[in-house]
């Protein structure tokens, strides 16, 4: 098991945002968390990334307890997040953005290899490497966000809403790339509003509702689950 989350409880002040969440990700899997806005999806990711501290519960990565490990250390261990809303460093160039993704890497050759890999996946970034991040279009920014996360050469990639605000045609492209990245051996935890797309690429999925996991299972099963279909896939 690559990542295991055990009975996680997170609070924002008095608000109980995550109420005992447990799930796991196996090596090579794409696992998706779906749920409504405010269900706790991003909170889960940020807790794994070490930005938020849980009040109780554990996050175990490769048999190591990383619950209280600081965020920068977690990146070094091999988990990297591409945050919601892309969060490109608009005042840095594309190249510098990618270098920031590789901040924890010290080996120059390794960085160059990562860079080549990212440019292979996203040739458009190579064309624009000297442009400021803020001048990219929405789709390009999303590519940069994913590419930047890949620069740290993670074993587990956390993707927060990669389809947000993108046109259907770009969503398609992004999801294609997500599958490619996975095929190259990176495990992915995918958080999505767009449940249909998410379930179609994921192996397994969990449904979050107000801080709890209410359903879990194989993505095909989830897709065929009438309740999920009604609430998240928009079937009538």
């Amino acid at each position, binding site marked *: 098991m690559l990542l295991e989350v055990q009975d996680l409880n997170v609070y924002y002040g008095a608000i109980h945002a995550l109420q005992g969440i447990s799930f796991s990700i196996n090596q090579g899997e794409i696992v998706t968390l779906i749920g409504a806005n405010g269900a706790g999806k991003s909170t889960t990711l940020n807790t794994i990334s070490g930005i938020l501290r849980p009040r109780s519960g554990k996050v175990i990565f490769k048999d190591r307890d990383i619950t209280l490990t600081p965020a920068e250390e977690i*990146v070094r261990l091999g988990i990297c997040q591409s945050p919601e809303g892309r969060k490109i460093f608009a005042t*840095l160039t594309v190249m510098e953005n990618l270098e*920031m993704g590789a901040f924890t890497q010290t080996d120059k050759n390794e960085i160059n290899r990562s860079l080549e890999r990212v440019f292979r996946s996203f040739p458009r970034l190579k064309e624009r490497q000297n442009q400021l991040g803020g001048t990219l279009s929405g789709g390009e920014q999303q590519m940069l966000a994913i590419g930047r996360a890949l620069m740290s050469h993670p074993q587990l990639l956390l993707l927060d809403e990669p389809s947000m605000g993108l046109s259907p045609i770009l969503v398609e492209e992004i999801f294609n790339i997500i599958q490619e990245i996975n095929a190259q051996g990176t495990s992915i935890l995918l958080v999505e509003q767009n449940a249909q797309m998410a379930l179609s690429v994921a192996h397994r999925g969990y449904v979050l509702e107000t801080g709890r996991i209410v359903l879990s299972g194989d993505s095909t099963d989830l897709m065929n689950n009438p309740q999920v279909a009604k609430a998240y896939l928009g079937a009538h």
Partner: protein
Amino acid sequence: MENERLTFIDRMIKGKWIGKLLLTVIVLFAVWGVGNKAIHNPQLFIQQIINGLQLGFVYALIALGYTMVYGIVRLINFAHGDVFMVGAMVSYFAVGSFHLHQWPAAAFPGLPNFISLLIGTISVILLSMAICAILAVTIERIAYKPLRNAPRISALITAIGVSFFLEYFGALPFVFTPNFITYKRPYEIVTWYIKDGIHRLEAGKAPPQGGILFSNNLIIIILVTVLLLLSLTYIVQKTKIGKAMRASAYDKPTSRLMGINVDGIISITFALGAALAGAAGVLYATAYPQVFFWMGIIPGLKAFIAAVLGGIGSIPGAFVGALIMGQAEVLAAGYISTPMRDAIAFSILILVLLVRPTGIYGEPEREKA
């Protein structure tokens, strides 16, 4: 684009020329006031420009600290001027009590006088820079870091508190005392004058009428400032730490997600800014040889105005703003009114802000989400 209901008067007003007229009148008035006297006595004018340059370069070093700290934590670090004061004080003790500047001469007696003085002076500057950096990081850890998630004003109030503390602690009799202290320079002042070529001014002699004076101080100040400025620009633009500083300034949570130790980067920023202020402290004290516990307030304030004038958060802005501030202050004092020079400095700031609401190098209108 034009409104249909426009009358003749409306159309006159539409050009926004009234405000521009006011600005033009003010600028013309100032130019006339200065220019008139400058033409009558061009030597004096050039002398003023040189004096302003010296002041402006010192301000630039202080302003950089304000601007860098503001850029990364959006805090107006009011204690920065007092860090500058500490820098001057450290060099005072280093030179006056410990004769730090003489160590190369003592260690390597064979060294030429010029070289040993140079190394000695550099040591004094480096010591001030180091101590200021340590001080600033300590302040940051104790007073600002715990408030990072509190409202912005809390940190500002703490900064004012720290500023008070440094001043009044410094004023205690066993620290720096509440008195003016005459500063002993690590090197002798050598003055030259320009009149039919450059001549060295003999010590104790009055400069000839119409000669333009400049000293080795001016050269040292400009050299040190340019050197530090270039190193800083290199650090911020080219190194990994500098890029991480810019990334953290733009978005801290995301920077942490990239594995950047944001707290560490903030500390480094404070340290860099304070080191520059420390160097500025030494240079200021050698130029205006008197140190006392309040001395950080006014230069600190001027440098701060300079940083805002240039567009706070922008490094070239701080530099340009400081040069403008130095000139404005000296020219205002020389040609308009000495007691009003602080008021004039601020009036310039307000006028510039009215025309460019985010300073000279500030970001123009950007698309809002």
